């Protein structure tokens, strides 16, 4: 058996990238496994039961919820994106499938996305220049798809000073560039 393949981050590095711009901190996350989970027709009850058993929250629309070992955010009716620690759950889809059997459709999504965790005292000035989400008004745990400089992303508000952005992996550099120049314009 051949030796394992090495991995590259979405920004093309061997180790994830962190950038500090004044009060803004942009951290590329490389340690989160992702899979989509969609309930099959009429199997909602089974899915919720299995999820509860697995320690997998299934938040309401436009919400994210963290759990152990799984966290999740809502992406579409009857569909969530499930997050887990990459080190222990790299093959997240394979780990989830037995838990749900034929009651859910599960698809690996880990490398479809680049994830940036952004922090600052108050992220409103940055995000009001990037996204039409009413960031100061939405509650913590809010999760929504949004467009940033023509790039479709998922935005999760942890709190007023902390946000998680998932963007399409292939556009990681363009998205990072947008975050960078905007943050710099606020110094």
């Amino acid at each position, binding site marked *: 058996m051949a030796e394992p393949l090495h991995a590259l981050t979405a920004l093309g590095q061997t180790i994830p990238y962190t950038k500090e711009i004044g009060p803004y901190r942009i951290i590329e996350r490389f340690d989160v496994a992702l899979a989509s989970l969609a309930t099959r027709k009429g199997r909602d009850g089974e899915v919720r039961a299995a999820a509860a058993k697995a320690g997998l929250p299934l938040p309401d*629309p*436009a919400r994210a919820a963290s759990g152990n070992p799984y966290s999740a955010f*809502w*992406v*579409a*009716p009857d569909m969530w994106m499930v997050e887990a620690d990459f080190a222990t759950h790299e093959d997240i889809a394979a780990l989830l499938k037995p838990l749900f059997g034929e009651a859910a459709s599960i698809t690996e999504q880990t490398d479809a996305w680049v994830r940036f965790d952004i922090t600052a005292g108050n992220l409103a000035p940055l995000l009001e220049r990037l996204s*039409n989400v009413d960031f100061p008004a939405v509650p913590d745990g809010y999760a*929504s*798809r*949004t*467009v940033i400089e023509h790039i*479709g992303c998922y935005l999760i508000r942890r709190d007023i000073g902390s946000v998680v952005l998932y963007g399409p992996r292939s556009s990681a550099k363009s998205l990072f560039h947008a975050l960078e120049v905007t943050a710099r314009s606020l110094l």
Partner: protein
Amino acid sequence: MIIHHPILGPRDAQEFVYLGDASLINRPDGLTAGVEAFYDYLYNRGNPAGEHRELWYHEQGDRSWLVVTRNTVTHEIIKVELARDVAKAAGRTK
């Protein structure tokens, strides 16, 4: 424009892709209906100046297809429904 998404609340219409008249829901059955029926279904439109039921897709959102009832003269939006619900109510199944 702002579309009040039945699940997500007010969302900028920029996040949506427009298809057209919601009558497109009523697709004839290809094994029983003929060219005439499909021609009328696909090509002819009421195109009213006033209330118009139309299909919008929340591409930069939750990927729901919506039926939006909108006034084409004032752009006022009167009603927004999930297209799936409308289609089922219209008797569409598999």
